[in-house]
């Protein structure tokens, strides 16, 4: 059959509509090569492929997010009735001492954890990419066994936060933990890390957060540093720049975009240190805002818990904006 012949004979209207419901393989040729059918087939395919993913996404992700905004303004306690109460939940939060206690802890983590983690991450990444012995004709060289270091540093990233929290709960244990056991060997009686003293508990949580994420940033930053062309380092070396100068004047500015993204990401992680605190801490030692939210939810204060969630979202948005503004530098193309 030639193409002209097919085009000359428009398909039967009935056959055409039947073809909408048929899979292409059973559709007659005369219909299949019709232009209108092709458009229709395309949209049928698009709708078919998007329907289930979009439905799942809309019902279980988008709609809860939108409902959250509404429920934060109600006194909902899980039943069918939710009375609109305006900003009562937020006023209650303002006057709730427990909210301020947990949020102070969360904010402390938000400020300290990213700085410590990123500094360690950049330091180790630079050691790995540039700390090696100079080889002939190379301005910069990595240390031996760099991939081995990266593999080990990355370990915590592949483990569940719940498991990390259980492990560290044992490590910090007062009587039979790794840390106090080690202190015992040198004759120091270790304190009760998770036993209720706020400062020690904070140090413990910070340690765990940093421990979990340093490896991630070492991999991320050493990939970014590896992307810097070697001739820039050669030029710096020829100009007589030392290691320190090279780092602060060449490496850091060139990976700054990655650092800033990592900073935002790490801040959001620190704000959401839910599992670590919930699993590792006895509840009286310290709380963070997500744990406070979860406890209100378990008590059935659904409206109040949702309002706390909204505040958490606002905190992370404000943090991201501040970091993006503070860390704004001219982008360097290379």
């Amino acid at each position: 059959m030639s193409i002209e012949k097919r085009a000359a004979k428009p398909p039967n209207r009935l056959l055409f509509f039947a073809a909408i419901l048929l899979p292409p393989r059973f559709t007659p040729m005369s219909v299949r090569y019709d232009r209108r059918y092709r458009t229709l087939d395309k949209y049928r395919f698009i709708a078919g492929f998007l329907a289930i993913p979009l439905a799942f996404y809309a019902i279980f992700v988008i709609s809860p997010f939108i409902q959250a905004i509404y429920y934060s303004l109600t006194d909902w306690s899980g039943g069918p009735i939710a009375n609109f109460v305006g900003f009562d939940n937020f006023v209650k939060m303002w006057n709730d001492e427990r909210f301020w206690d947990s949020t102070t802890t969360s904010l402390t983590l938000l400020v300290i954890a990213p700085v410590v983690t990123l500094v360690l991450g950049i330091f180790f990444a630079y050691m790995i990419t540039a700390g090696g012995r100079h080889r002939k004709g190379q301005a910069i060289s990595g240390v031996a066994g760099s991939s081995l270091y990266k593999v080990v540093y990355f370990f915590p990233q592949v483990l569940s936060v719940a498991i990390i929290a259980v492990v560290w709960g044992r490590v910090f244990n007062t009587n039979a933990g790794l840390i106090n056991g080690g202190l015992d060997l040198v004759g120091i009686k270790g304190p009760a890390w998770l036993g209720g003293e706020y400062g020690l508990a904070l140090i413990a949580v910070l340690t765990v957060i940093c421990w979990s994420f340093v490896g991630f940033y070492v991999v991320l930053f050493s990939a970014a540093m590896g992307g810097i062309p070697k001739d820039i380092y050669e030029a710096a070396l020829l100009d007589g720049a030392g290691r320190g100068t090279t780092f602060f004047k060449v490496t850091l500015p060139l990976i700054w975009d990655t650092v800033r993204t990592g900073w935002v990401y790490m801040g959001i992680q620190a704000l959401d240190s839910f599992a670590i605190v919930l699993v590792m801490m006895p509840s009286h030692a310290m709380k963070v805002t997500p744990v406070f939210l979860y406890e209100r939810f378990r008590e059935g204060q659904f409206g109040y818990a949702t309002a706390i969630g909204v505040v958490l979202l606002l905190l992370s948005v404000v943090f991201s904006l501040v970091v993006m503004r503070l860390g704004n530098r001219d982008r360097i193309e290379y």
Partner: protein
Amino acid sequence: MSTSTSTRTESRQSKTDQVKVQESGGALNVFSHAFLILWTLMAAGPLIWVAVTAFRTSSDILNDPMGLPSSLHWANFANAWNQAHIGQYALNSLIILAGSLTGTMLLGSMAAYVIARFTFPGNKFVFLLFAGGMMFPVILALVPLFAVMENFQLLDTRPGLIIAYIAYSLPFTTFFLTSFFRTLPTGVQEAAMVDGASHTRTFFQIMLPMAKPGLVSIGIFNFLGQWNQYLLPLLLNNENESSYVLPQGLATLAIAQGYRGDWGALFAGLTIAMVPVLVVYAVFQRQVQAGLTAGALK
């Protein structure tokens, strides 16, 4: 331009430089190795401690936490597997993961393919909808999600948990795969269509195999994310202890064993949970590192 003179001075200068740098390089090399090894001990230390201590009896551990096992006390592993139900939890995790990972990859790649390769009204909107979902923390949706699941009678059921995993993995999966499908050549797709393959067939037999590198990266990302998930099961799968997934079961066990003082079983349980993941990671380290850092680099 006197090229010859400039090269000569340059070479002389670089020679003196090299001598100087080599000296400082040696010192720095030792210094950097010292720090790197220190952190290696920090990173692996707690994990090694848990794995070694898993072979000791509970009373030994409580007497001397730093000691080495006097004999291999395998009973801890049997206790963990049977009495502490680690075996059951691992099986639950596997069943959930089988459903959720398949679903995520299938639905994510379908949506991504359509968004990347077809022009239709609302294309951009759908893309932004998925991309926007990445920015919201799950904890914000916690309470309403619980209610939605309850309405659909999906609370404390396996399908419910699987659907939740899929739904919350879709934004990043779709976002990542959309940009991946965009990089594939258009010619192959057109050729398949000219040869009479349907859209569906083109997708499954031509485009999916071509997208394999992207699928592997995002597959590893989702595998680890879903296997390690703690918040969603805690919220949606909290009623019945026999249906707990692995991280959930271990967290519960940690509290229970803390009271009973049976540390041996807990350490064995942790080891059982950690070792397979670490082994898989050690084998596929390059892909895993690429997969997990892909999100931050995009």
